[in-house]
């Protein structure tokens, strides 16, 4: 039997960006919080020997141990889902700070269009423009309403960026906390080419600090060293904003955060109307505990957020056949695959150097910043050149037609290792009635509970988007002064084997309709008013951007909602 612990005001499941931000905001307001994290503790000293491509990038040292829990996957409802046995398409966080420790730090606020995608699409193109089964919808919150929360995240994390930003993205009420990152020669080539074509390039806003910064909580951090070991690695300088060097120390300093590591939450306890707490297993001892709480907050990334609701039978599971219910609805991803490589016979670049968020990009073909009347897709992509640090195991650049091994292969990879610049699109992913998450009927985790099952594929929308965006990447790359360019412009089925991005979205989506969304715009659950759920699981679709800016803003919004709820109770909308 589980040991019952004394009741607390707030319990949070997961101590990544979302858990960390909410814990920090609540404890600063004097509220006691228990933070449950299934993984181990971490701090910056753990990264003094982090510049190890094999261990961290190829063997996934910092990611969730799949032997204990994974995701099962199928392309369509007709297929049998099989477990993702080894890493590929996306990498899951585990341990203090979650994936926030090994992210890149590319920071993009979603576009105003994203939050009202349905209304704005219908307004400009009519209802017919939306293909059958594409379940886009307004988010129940506008960009303007979310704007102040973006600012909070930016000031906390010290987001670096330009003061003058292009007119085709959301307006900012306050400039970024620090100036832009340094510009590498590749970035200059990209920006010059884009400008020549009449586009609006800007330096990617970055959570790798461009200069020393002290945030409003008094946290001081050192600047980024462009060390080239960022994506998939922890930062030994604390220069990359992550929860462990920003929000968590603030929460700890209040004395109000009771942080429990190795605590894997397995169940939300509830009476059908309200939650009364959670059950968790302390993994080093195998002891089971129940933690009663006035408020339960799910911050365990979308797979955990959805899975815990379904395992605990809280909320209405989504049924794609009848198009009813909410939990598991609108799973979406990121549509990559449109890119052009420029080869340079006459010069080499310092491509081993870089930072997770170093680069320049344009939004001229993102959102609805261009006319879709004659196009067979909606939304678009942020088009970018990034310089994140290219490492020799995972980066084998060769021109098309090169053999895959042997003398010629070796020569080509060595010759080209510092001679290729790539312009790529990060495409938006539109939801579809038949893309969703539910519980796997067969496969179980280490505790004997069903795995989460993903049903997802690329549709015509995605293939058309990639074809179009690829042409734009070529147009830019052709202007960048290379010797030749090579375009990549097609995607087929979604395949879980190659890495694409850890930008999984949906499943506990926000909205204004309690029947088809899981949470309201305070991220409060419609079906249980003292449960708050936050993360990219709240996104009804995914934009042509990385998600964490918007996740961070929603986390600040959640923290405010929780405080309101503690004051007044009831539904906040």
């Amino acid at each position, binding site marked *: 039997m589980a040991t019952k612990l004394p009741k607390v005001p707030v319990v949070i499941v997961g101590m990544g960006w979302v858990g960390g931000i909410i814990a920090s905001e609540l404890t600063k307001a004097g509220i006691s919080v228990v933070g449950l994290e299934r993984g181990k503790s971490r701090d910056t*000293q753990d990264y003094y020997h982090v510049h190890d491509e094999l261990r961290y990038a190829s063997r996934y040292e910092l990611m969730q141990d799949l032997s204990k829990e994974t995701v099962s996957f199928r392309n369509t409802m007709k297929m049998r889902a099989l477990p993702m046995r080894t890493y590929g398409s996306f990498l899951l966080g585990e341990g203090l700070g979650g994936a926030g420790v090994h992210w890149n730090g590319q920071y993009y606020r979603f576009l105003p269009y994203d939050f009202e995608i349905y209304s704005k699409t219908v307004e400009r193109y009519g209802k017919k423009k939306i293909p059958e089964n594409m379940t886009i919808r307004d988010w129940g919150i506008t960009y303007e309403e979310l704007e102040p929360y973006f600012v909070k995240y930016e000031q906390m994390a010290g987001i670096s960026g330009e003061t003058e930003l292009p007119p085709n993205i959301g307006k900012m009420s306050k400039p970024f906390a620090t100036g832009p990152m340094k510009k*590498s020669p590749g970035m200059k080539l990209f920006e010059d080419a884009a400008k020549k074509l009449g586009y609006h390039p800007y330096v990617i806003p970055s959570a790798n600090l461009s200069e020393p910064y002290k945030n409003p909580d008094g*946290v001081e951090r050192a600047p980024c*060293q462009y*060390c080239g070991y960022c994506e998939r690695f922890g930062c030994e300088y604390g220069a990359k904003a992550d929860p462990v060097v920003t929000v968590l120390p603030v929460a700890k300093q209040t004395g109000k955060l009771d942080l429990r590591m190795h605590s894997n939450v397995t169940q939300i306890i509830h009476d059908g109307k309200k939650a009364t707490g959670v059950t968790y297993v302390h993994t080093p001892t195998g002891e089971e505990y129940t933690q009663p709480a006035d408020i339960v907050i799910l911050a365990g990334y979308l797979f955990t957020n959805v899975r815990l609701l379904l395992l605990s039978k809280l909320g209405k599971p989504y049924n794609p056949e009848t198009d009813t219910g909410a939990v598991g609805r609108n799973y979406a991803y990121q549509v990559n695959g449109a890119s052009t490589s420029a080869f340079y016979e006459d010069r080499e670049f310092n491509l081993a150097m870089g930072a997770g968020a170093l680069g320049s990009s344009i939004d001229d073909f993102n959102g609805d910043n261009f006319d879709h009347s004659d196009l067979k897709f909606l939304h678009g992509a942020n088009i970018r050149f990034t310089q994140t640090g290219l490492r*020799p195991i995972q980066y084998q650049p060769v021109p098309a037609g090169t053999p895959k091994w042997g003398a010629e292969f*070796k020569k080509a990879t060595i010759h080209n290792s510092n001679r290729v610049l790539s312009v790529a699109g990060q495409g938006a992913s539109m939801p579809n009635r038949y893309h969703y998450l539910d519980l796997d009927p067969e496969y179980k985790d280490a505790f004997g509970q069903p795995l989460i099952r993903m049903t997802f594929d690329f549709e015509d929308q995605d293939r058309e988007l990639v074809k179009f965006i690829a042409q734009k990447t070529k147009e830019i790359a052709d202007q960048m002064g290379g010797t030749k360019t090579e375009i990549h412009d097609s995607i087929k*089925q979604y395949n879980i084997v190659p890495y694409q991005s850890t930008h999984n979205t949906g499943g506990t989506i926000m909205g204004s309709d309690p029947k088809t969304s899981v949470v309201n715009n305070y991220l409060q659950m419609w079906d249980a008013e003292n449960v708050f759920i936050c993360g990219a699981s709240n996104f009804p679709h995914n934009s042509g951007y990385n998600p964490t800016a918007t996740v961070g803003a929603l986390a600040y919004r959640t923290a405010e909602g929780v405080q309101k709820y503690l004051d007044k109770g009831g539904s906040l909308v």
Partner: protein
Amino acid sequence: MANDKPNQPQDESRRRFLKYSGTALGGVVLGGVIGGLVGSNLKQTEKETAPEPGKSGTAPENKDYNQALMFFNQDQFLTAEAAAERLFPKDDLGPGAKELGVAFFIDHQMASAFGTNARDYMQPPYYKAEATQGYQLVFKRRELIALGLDAMNQYSNTKYQKPFVEIAPEEQDAVLTAFETDKTEIKDVPSSNFFAMFLNLTLEGAYADPLYGGNRNMAGWKMRNFPGNQMSYTDYIEKEEFVKLEPLSLHDHLELG
């Protein structure tokens, strides 16, 4: 230690880092790392004057006791070495897989958690998968690599009446191609799966930090002008010209007790 090397980039870059960070060291550093780095920097400086520990009376110069087998048998090792050399051959640019120690790397990896799929989901049931669903066999990496190497020898013995290590390079290439394209007609061996994994391991062995037994003397990195792991590129990131740096390995960052 890095300190006895002619170039001392680590210590240099730590100093440079401190200069660039420009953060008041006495200030509140709630989340930062500065304390830790300064600490280790100071320790480093103390050590510069102290005698090198463990330097004298150790191994005879060119003998590397790490070059021994943890998993392969002798035949498998020699086959792996010869096969890897064909995938990544010595040429005028520099050493091939053999000289880089790739076969030792693969052997050591097969003995590690990776070889035994320790962090993979290995629970049953196992079903035939669509290509989009990835690897779905109960067979572990180390089992696949050993089986594949044995099968290459078997194939070579049947076709050329000689083991893989004794046939001509072009013949070795033909064997590898047969495995790559599933044309071996050896039943019960998933040849192309084996080949893909072996190729991947070969490249890892050429370019992983030398601590894992491959990339001997960082020669893999040197061929590519890859600087290994440096502390900071702040001074170089904006430079138009290519900057060539002597690579550093994780060994260079270790403070020995």
